[in-house]
């Protein structure tokens, strides 16, 4: 998948308005990691979207150590906590523009790193993490976004030699891979958004795309939190975040930082009880300058059973006309369309959601994939019946 925008050069690591004590990296547990020479970053406390209790403080410490090993200079946890207290920041799932600017000025960082824990199970180890780096300036641009979701038993291999039984090993695999990806992206050597692997077996069952959506244009997109009907807590936020990641990895889209979107939603007191309305779309557009707004509903997002299940509907609305330009209703199971000996099974719900969304977005500009339903019907439409709208579905 092509990179969405030209790599933004990482700002030179500020030596520090905070002095040498804050310039070095520290971890909450496990001793002091080696000092990196890369960009200086602030790692915000982890957001828990796992739907279960998780040792967030310990995970943050381990992640901080992993980032430092990747050569990044991480602001000390105590310094960051003082900054968050001073600015009364309680929500760490996103960054508001004012906070991003203040972090750049006061902490001397070039980027704020946000991490969302999307899955956590220590017994049969399972871990899912999505991270993104937001530029520490007023525009709060998303500089990088990536994620990884793994279960210990997803690749058992020959005689079960590929099984991972230790949650620490799994955690280390994920943290080091994401830290490396971030370091490479900030150094201008890696992709700015990590796309997961799509597959035809995860194609949404019902989908629509308007001719108004032009493949040649660049769009700025605001993703609003999805309405959640799922049993799992934070399912709407998780799916919106996965969609954000896959959208960022799609050619022609620039994604607006969810923290900035949230700021506008709170400021204008937008309540999307029955879904996003056209008035709300216009308000978001006026405040954010977005071309498209994405909203949706989640019905199922569950990996408590033997195989994960995901069911959702996502809609993309054109900000100018208020028309729906893309809509997909998807339902998928992790064991759908399995290959020989059950290879290709997806073990976690975030990984499944990611694949379904990737498949949907890969088809976004594939006009052949969007065939109107009546052409599939066994009987042709009667004379004088309805015809497809001009400029409608393709």
């Amino acid at each position, binding site marked *: 998948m092509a990179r969405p925008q030209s790599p933004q050069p990482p700002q030179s690591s500020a030596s520090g308005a905070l002095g040498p004590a804050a310039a070095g990296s520290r971890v909450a547990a496990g001793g002091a990691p080696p000092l990196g020479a890369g960009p200086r970053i602030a790692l915000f406390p982890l957001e828990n979207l796992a739907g279960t209790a998780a040792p967030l403080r310990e995970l943050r410490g381990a992640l901080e150590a992993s980032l430092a090993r990747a050569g990044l200079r991480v602001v000390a946890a105590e310094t960051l906590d003082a900054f968050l207290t001073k600015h009364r920041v309680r929500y760490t799932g996103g960054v508001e523009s004012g906070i991003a600017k203040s972090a750049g000025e006061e902490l001397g960082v070039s980027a704020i790193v946000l991490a969302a824990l999307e899955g956590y199970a220590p017994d049969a180890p399972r871990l899912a993490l999505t991270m993104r780096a937001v530029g520490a300036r007023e525009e709060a641009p998303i500089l990088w976004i990536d994620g990884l979701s793994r279960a210990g038993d997803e690749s058992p291999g020959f005689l079960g030699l590929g099984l991972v039984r230790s949650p620490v090993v799994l955690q280390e695999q994920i943290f080091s891979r994401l830290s490396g990806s971030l370091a490479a992206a900030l150094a201008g050597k890696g992709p700015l958004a990590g796309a997961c692997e799509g597959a035809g077996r995860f194609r949404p*069952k*019902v*989908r*629509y795309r308007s001719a108004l959506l032009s493949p040649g244009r660049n769009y700025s997109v605001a993703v609003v939190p999805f309405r959640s*009907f799922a049993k799992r807590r934070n399912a709407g936020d998780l799916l919106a975040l996965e969609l954000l990641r896959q959208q960022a990895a799609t050619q022609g889209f620039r994604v607006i930082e969810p923290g900035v979107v949230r700021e506008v939603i709170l400021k204008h007191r937008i309540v*999307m*009880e*029955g*879904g*996003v*309305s*056209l*008035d*709300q779309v216009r308000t978001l557009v006026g405040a954010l300058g977005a071309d498209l707004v994405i*909203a949706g*509903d989640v*019905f199922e997002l569950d990996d408590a059973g033997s195989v994960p299940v995901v*069911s959702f*509907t996502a*809609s993309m*609305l054109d900000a100018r006309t*208020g*028309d*729906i330009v893309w*809509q*997909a*209703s998807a*339902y998928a*199971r992790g064991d759908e369309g399995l290959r020989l000996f059950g290879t290709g099974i997806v073990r976690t719900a975030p990984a499944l959601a990611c694949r379904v969304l990737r498949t949907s977005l890969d088809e976004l500009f594939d006009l052949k994939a*969007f065939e*109107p*339903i*009546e052409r599939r*019907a066994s*009987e042709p*439409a*009667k004379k*004088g*019946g*309805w*015809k*497809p*709208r001009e400029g*409608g*579905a*393709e």
Partner: protein
Amino acid sequence: MSIARVLVDRPSRWGLAAAATRGAGLLVVLLALACASGHRYQDAQMDFGSVKTVAVLPFANLSRDNLAGERVRDTFANALLATGAVYVLPAGEVARALGKAGVANAAAPSSEEIVKLCQAVKADAVITAVVKEYGELRSGTATGNVASVSAQMLEGTTGKVVWAASTTKGGIGLSDRLLGGGGAPLNDVTEAAVDDLVSKLLK
């Protein structure tokens, strides 16, 4: 053709073949009637070509699954939009208009409320529906998934019903009884039911 002629012709080989063909045809018709599910009404006076924008209202839910209404509505609205025949308004816009128009029962609005609603959202028609059955069905040891939905379209200027149809998909088939397996997944059944309704609407 006289009766005598028929009696004379009956034993012939060609006569038997014709009778067998007629019998088979009758069997096919009977099977087709047995497989057909649901009813359909369409106002012969209505110009459906003039319907460009539709508001799909929240579906009434009579099933045990609390989310059945929302699930089927989402799939139906998307499937209808995907036909390209009409534009379906975003659910949030419909919810806002319902609140603004003060519709007491969104699943079964009155004619006046429909007219008011259509004026507010600039829709040509609204679609209401009832999910009658949704979810797992049991018969002895066999199980299967079923979706039963009836829908109607009401014209925006008068609030009159111009189309109505119902469908039932899924259930317990012979293979489910003999082999088990639980039938088709509920989402596939939902999609089949919705496709059937959309096909009946566009005919």
